[in-house]
């Protein structure tokens, strides 16, 4: 799981998506398993790479760096696309381990 060994020091992870996505979804999607539409790898959304200083949050696959999701939230409202997500799975179990 090392799409880039570069010094992307400004990069965060999917944990920061919890707040913005709560404006759209009732469930906590940061624990959902996301299958990347580009490479098929899957991981919890919290483990995805988030570039947070562009005009919008850009979420990338930790395996292939492909864009899986974008989210922008401001005074005008929310814009959200997940064309890079092949499948999103939320389990009903509350065991996180």
């Amino acid at each position, binding site marked *: 799981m090392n799409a880039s060994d570069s010094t992307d020091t400004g990069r965060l992870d999917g944990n920061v998506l919890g707040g913005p996505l709560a404006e759209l979804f009732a469930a906590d999607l940061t624990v959902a398993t996301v299958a990347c539409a580009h490479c098929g790898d899957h991981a919890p959304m919290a483990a995805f790479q988030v*570039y947070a200083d562009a005009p919008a949050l850009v979420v990338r696959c930790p395996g292939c760096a492909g864009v899986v999701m974008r989210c922008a939230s401001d005074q005008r409202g929310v814009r959200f696309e997940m064309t890079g997500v092949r499948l999103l799975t939320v389990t009903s179990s509350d065991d996180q381990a």
Partner: protein
Amino acid sequence: MSHVSRGFSGRRRDAPAGRLPPGQYDVGDGFPVLSAGPVPYTEPDEWDFTVQGQVDEVRRWSWQEFKQLPREPVTVDIHCVTSWSKFATRWEGVSVETLLAEVETAGDYVLAFSDGGYTTNLPLDDVVDGKAWVVDTYDGSPLEPEHGGPARLLVPHLYFWKSAKWVRGLVLNLVDEPGFWENFGYHNYGDPWKEQRYAGD
């Protein structure tokens, strides 16, 4: 707007009247780096620039060939949609006019594409007649990768997301094809003086 945080003013700063488009602030000596992804690192011997799509013939320049083309210094103000502006930025490169000089095309639109997958679209009219360049030098030094090096597009009359970093070529199109930010709700054209930030503005 309900709550205002006492004592918070953000990074705003005033600037000479008439020089700043609406809603912008002068970032002064700073040059923010906004990235939608990892910084690509492309070596000169891996780099080329192509003009393709609705053209009579694909044009291609290697880095060495690109460096041989007629070039010029460019000093312009730039305006980012995230509201920072920077005055009198100094660049050097090849005008897009030069790159398209002998190209025959029926296309009216251009899609610029970059290493890392970024794209942005413009009308052909907005990259010719001295309106756009492919630049490889900033402030007298080779353009750094985090600022878009080895070369980036420079289209100062539009919001800076149109000045694609890490540019590798132009596709001439008959039909306008929205790029990375244009198909996420940002304005298709992006004139900062008309404050065209979002689709519908």
